[in-house]
């Protein structure tokens, strides 16, 4: 994990993003305990309240759960849910921004569609 205090993305959001990435990749398997806020804060020299805020976002999103007195765990089904959330975010954020950028450059819908189809064939 890497955190950047000079990024456009606030640090607590970076915590949420990177833990989600860990859940998606299987680095934090479903049912397993994730590192404690204290551990994360210490390892990356981050404010503990910031770390807690980021992890609480994942609790609210249903990816992590708190077990009293023990710590936070990855919820069963979190991987699929994280993927669904990421896909939704892709359409609402990345795609909108890409089309806006294409329009600003005078790229037509047909040209963009053709380029996307070509990229898919390259896989």
């Amino acid at each position, binding site marked *: 994990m890497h*955190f950047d*205090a*000079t*990024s*456009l993305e*606030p*640090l*607590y959001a970076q915590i949420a993003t990177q833990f989600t990435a860990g859940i998606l990749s299987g680095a934090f398997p479903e049912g397993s305990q994730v590192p404690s806020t*204290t551990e994360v*804060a*210490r*390892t*990356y*020299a*981050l*404010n*503990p*309240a*910031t770390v807690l*805020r980021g992890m609480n976002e994942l609790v609210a999103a249903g990816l992590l759960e708190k077990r009293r007195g023990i710590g936070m765990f990855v919820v069963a089904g979190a991987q699929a849910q994280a993927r669904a959330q990421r896909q939704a975010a892709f359409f609402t954020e990345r795609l909108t921004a890409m089309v*806006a950028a294409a329009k*600003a450059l005078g790229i037509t819908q047909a040209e963009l569609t053709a380029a996307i189809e070509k990229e898919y064939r390259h896989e």
Partner: protein
Amino acid sequence: MSELVFKNVTKNYGEKRVLRGVNMTWQSGQIYGLLGRNGAGKSTLMRIVNNRTFASGGALLLDGQSVVENEQAQNRIFLMSDAMLYPADKRIEWLFKLTAQMYGDFDWDLAQDLAHQFKLDVRARLGRLSTGYRTIAKLIIALCVPCEFILLDEPVLGLDAVHRELFYRALLQAYGTRPRTFVLSTHIIDEIAGLISHVFVLEGGQIALDEDLDELMAKGRVVSGPAALVQEWLSGVAVLRREQLGGMVTAYTLDAPLEKPLPAGVTLAPMNLQKLFIELTMEAETNGQ
């Protein structure tokens, strides 16, 4: 919840008005950054909190009680500063024991762990330490005393990059074991941006910025683009400073109207803490005082 409240604190040295009415509140369990240019009065402010000098006016209240010549309040406050007040022929472990006696408690486990992490020989004599290791010895003491308000004036003075990183982690280790209020005054701003939750900037003898870091990152932006477009996008928004180069403008704001669509050709960059500090304190300098 304990809090330390500054009410219109002033300090004059003869004709020179160093502090011109400082108002702020330090709450328990927070990690604060106290930033300011050289000579801004950061050390003076911390020394006033710790009764090493006294304010010319105003009040400083810990849970409603003045901290001035108040031993009970002072037992809850610790200041680590550049001053080395101990005999050069004494050993570090002697200093640890002395501190333990003075404050009634000392986290020996943490002290030993930190001495080991920093490779500090606790048998070494104070007078034989390099600048960096003198700082390290003082830092370990500051992190191991039982006080609720720990003031760190230039905590990384003379430390190399690795030791600075070790210190930031040590601080969080100490905080994790026992959450307290830490106030850091430093010039290495980028390195503490992720560590602190709230920042104060002291400028012109007053608090020029009193802001949560989350808030700052969320809405602080550097906006660049064609002058007319930038101006329109930022209409009605407070702008700290504008730079114009030909038809291109760069504007610095703490309150970017992110809900408005961004016109094509206008770009946003984050306003990081160091950039903001420069914008806030440089402007005052060009304006004269």
